[in-house]
């Protein structure tokens, strides 16, 4: 317990994870590549069981990286609602095909084998992609993303815009918090508000928040001008962030494996029709 309390934690974009997470032995470029590749792989797989296995693999990565699985709680409504919506669209709008076979009934509607299979494929893809996306933002900070992009020689302006965008999302939320505290200090009782008033109030928050952003844009651009940055020529400068990361042999191996994995999946899918629905165990069970 004492050890857990003393554990140094680091705030990522979506979660808190220990500084000594094994994932941090990898360079941010390797982590970014993992995000990109895992964002594509499930799209080439039409076997739900494989995509569900992929989702489990991502969950294991969460555990390996020491991310508390409780941080996934806020995504539970997304996971459930996306599933319900996907299945309902395929149940209510199955389309017409003489080869469809009725496998049951729900709400008085016939359930056909192929639309249910397609719903399982779509949902398994959504789940796998959703988890891999959450994994990246749960394990990486804005600084890691910048380090990855600058290592890949992204132009300064583009990486600066991206970094400032991510930071400004945080500033926007901090400003919102300040505005709400000011309202409470003046005696506004949120609990007593009607739903329509709450909606109106939330829409109106955008006015001071955008005004603050406008003022901030002047301050930041003046600061950049004073430091000698311009749109076209920022000059060659030492990049402090990059000195903090080193590309190791493990990074080379993991990047090669990831790229190879994606190419093999694409090759076998289009050359030998692997990963198609007709190879799926679920398809066999539904028939």
């Amino acid at each position, binding site marked *: 317990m004492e050890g857990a309390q003393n554990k140094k934690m680091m705030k990522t974009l979506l979660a808190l994870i220990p500084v000594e997470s094994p994932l941090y032995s990898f360079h941010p470029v390797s982590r970014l590549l993992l995000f990109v590749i895992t964002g594509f792989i499930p799209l080439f797989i039409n076997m739900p069981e494989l995509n569900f296995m992929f989702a489990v693999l991502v969950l294991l990565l969460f555990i390996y990286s020491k991310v508390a699985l409780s941080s996934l709680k806020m995504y539970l409504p997304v996971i459930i609602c996306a599933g319900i919506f*996907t299945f309902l669209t395929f149940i209510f*709008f199955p389309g017409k095909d003489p080869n469809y076979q009725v496998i049951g009934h729900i709400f008085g509607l016939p359930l056909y084998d192929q639309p249910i299979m397609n719903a399982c494929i*779509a949902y398994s893809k959504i789940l796998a992609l959703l988890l891999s996306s959450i994994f990246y933002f749960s394990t990486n900070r804005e600084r890691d993303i910048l380090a990855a992009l600058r290592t890949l020689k992204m132009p300064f302006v583009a990486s600066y815009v*991206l970094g*400032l965008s991510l930071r400004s999302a945080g500033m926007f939320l901090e400003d919102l918090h300040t505005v709400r505290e000011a309202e409470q200090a003046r005696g506004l009782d949120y609990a007593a508000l009607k739903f329509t008033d709450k909606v109106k109030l939330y829409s109106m928050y955008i006015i001071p*928040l955008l005004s603050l952003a406008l003022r901030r844009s002047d301050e930041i651009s003046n600061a*950049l001008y004073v430091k000698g940055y311009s749109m076209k020529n920022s000059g060659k400068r030492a990049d402090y962030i990059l000195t903090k990361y080193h590309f190791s042999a493990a990074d080379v191996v993991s990047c090669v494996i990831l790229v190879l994995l994606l190419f093999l999946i694409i090759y076998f899918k289009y050359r030998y029709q692997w990963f198609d629905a007709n190879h799926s165990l679920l398809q066999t069970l539904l028939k």
Partner: protein
Amino acid sequence: MNMKMNANVWSLNEGELRTPQMNHIIMMALFIGVGVVVGTFGSLAVPLGFVSAFWPGQAIQSVGCIWFGMWGGIASIVFPLISNAIAGSASIAVSLAYAPGNFLQGIMAGWAFRFFKCDPRLTSGKDWAVFTVFGVILCNAIGAAWGVTVLRMFGMISPSSTITVFFGWSIGNSVPSFILGAILLKFVSPLIVKSKSFCKKYWA
């Protein structure tokens, strides 16, 4: 008088030279941040997977393109990439496929306001009509058509549900888009049109 004021918002003053400045880039970055928060909130508030049915982020796209021209257009492409990834509402591949639709969804209003010389402060009936038609109805229809096509391409929705999803997407997004967009234009435009970041042309 009203017509004169409308035209003046977009027309250059005598000797006025407008070029893209660092200020435009910074404002775009900050605007992307605003879009990320609003877009993520929308995706998490009504979570339907890759389908969008109540996304206030669209208002940010339209209004951004009216105020900041192409900078708003770039923001319209970039912030959904980030907010979709954070909210888990679309993978990077699907988000990239959405990008042209997101750009059109934003720039439509920016183009219409410049073409019809409307006032971003919504001072006349014409301004309201152009905002409603181009900044809400048409752009959401285009965005929904593009989005539904992408989802069909990736096999995420059933072929026979395409029309229903299209209407759900386009009408569902139009509601928050109209409310938030009107509030932003009516109350924030007076500040923006006086600022250095406001773009009379597409880039400056």
